[in-house]
């Protein structure tokens, strides 16, 4: 089955993509670029670098802009899925949703309207096992956004390796947050994945941070040999 992967550049969508590649054919990546920083559906830091990640993966990217108005952005999602269906013949869509009924419901509805299958291979995943598998499989993930206490500026740009995962475990337990950041505490950016032919090197980045709210803006990045 030919599939398109809803793609934000973060760990969940890339891991879901990798899962999908093991069972079906991933024909393209699909990104909805939201102008609204408050968008619940689509906003992520560094979404513009999705094109570089797609190049690293050797997959075509369908990119659609949205103003990010609450329900209207679903029309833009529909436009993106239609474009992917027309250009690459996708029969289904893969998402990296883990717990968000809000996001999953909306994607399911649009997929159903278009007669597309919807796959959520991380749905209700065991978060501990997922994070372990992420690291063991060779994903290299950096923290590109922090949006709640106790994640301060020092977390921006950190790679999620074993040491960081250990600290995240302690925080998840103490502050009752998810280990994966699914509650919106963290956003991530993937610089390498098992299916990347090249990895991404961050050449220049800046931090915008205030009061447990900040992003790592990747100003310049390129592909390098693995």
């Amino acid at each position: 089955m030919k599939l398109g992967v809803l793609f934000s550049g973060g760990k969940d969508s890339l891991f879901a993509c990798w899962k999908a590649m093991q069972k079906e054919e991933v024909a393209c990546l699909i990104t909805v670029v939201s102008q609204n920083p408050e968008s619940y559906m689509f906003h992520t830091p560094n979404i513009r670098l999705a094109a570089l990640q797609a190049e690293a993966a050797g997959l075509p990217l369908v990119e659609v802009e949205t103003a990010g108005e609450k329900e209207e952005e679903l029309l833009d999602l529909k436009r993106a899925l239609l474009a992917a269906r027309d250009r690459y013949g996708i029969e289904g869509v893969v998402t990296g949703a883990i717990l968000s009924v809000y996001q999953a419901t909306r994607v399911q509805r649009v997929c159903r309207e278009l007669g597309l299958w919807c796959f959520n291979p991380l749905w209700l995943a065991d978060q501990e096992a997922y994070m372990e598998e992420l690291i063991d499989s060779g994903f290299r993930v950096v923290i590109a956004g922090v949006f709640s206490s106790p994640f301060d500026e020092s977390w921006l740009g950190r790679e999620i390796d074993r040491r960081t995962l250990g600290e995240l475990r302690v925080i998840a337990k103490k502050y009752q947050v998810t280990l994966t950041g699914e509650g919106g505490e963290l956003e991530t950016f993937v610089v390498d994945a098992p299916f990347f032919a090249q990895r991404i090197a961050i050449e220049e980045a800046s931090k915008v941070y205030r009061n447990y709210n900040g992003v790592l803006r990747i100003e310049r990045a390129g592909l390098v040999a693995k």
Partner: protein
Amino acid sequence: MILLIDLCYRDGSLSRDEFVAPVERLLCRIGVAFVTRHYTAVGAPDLESADAAILCGTALMDTGYTEHPELFRWLLTFERPVLGISSGMRALAAAFGGGVEPCREIGMADVKMLAPDPLFAGQEGFPAYTVHDYAVQVPGEFVALAASDRCVQAIRHRSLPLYGSSSTPRSGTSGSSSGSPGSPVFRARSG
């Protein structure tokens, strides 16, 4: 031992992690032994050794299992506890002659209890995450246990411990966990 049945479009499919693995994790967590089989591979030894069975859900577009009613006839004589979740409820009802009618619900639904049952003990209603295109028509040997304002959401056989629920264990996060395979009632009945 619980026989967990995968109704997805292919054995080892991409949907397995979404619809079967969460139930497996739940059973592991509560320490219940189980074996998982794809619905096309359920054999007589599996049925003989099972104390109970759970029929898992499928993706919305995945209705391939409905084309093989002969693979679910064993439900008529199983007589041990069965829980059909989502598509599993449809397969269970179909085995007893229940049809379907169009009823698309995608998202959270308010489910209200229609009849008392230990599986949902203490609840008058609960929010559930539902994803389906069709509602089950309750077979004559079953009663409707719960419904949303649009369609039936849970059923039970009149004399056997056979249950169907339209929401999956995922909705345990939204308050309907008593209807899940982790429910003490289901565990007690499944030996």
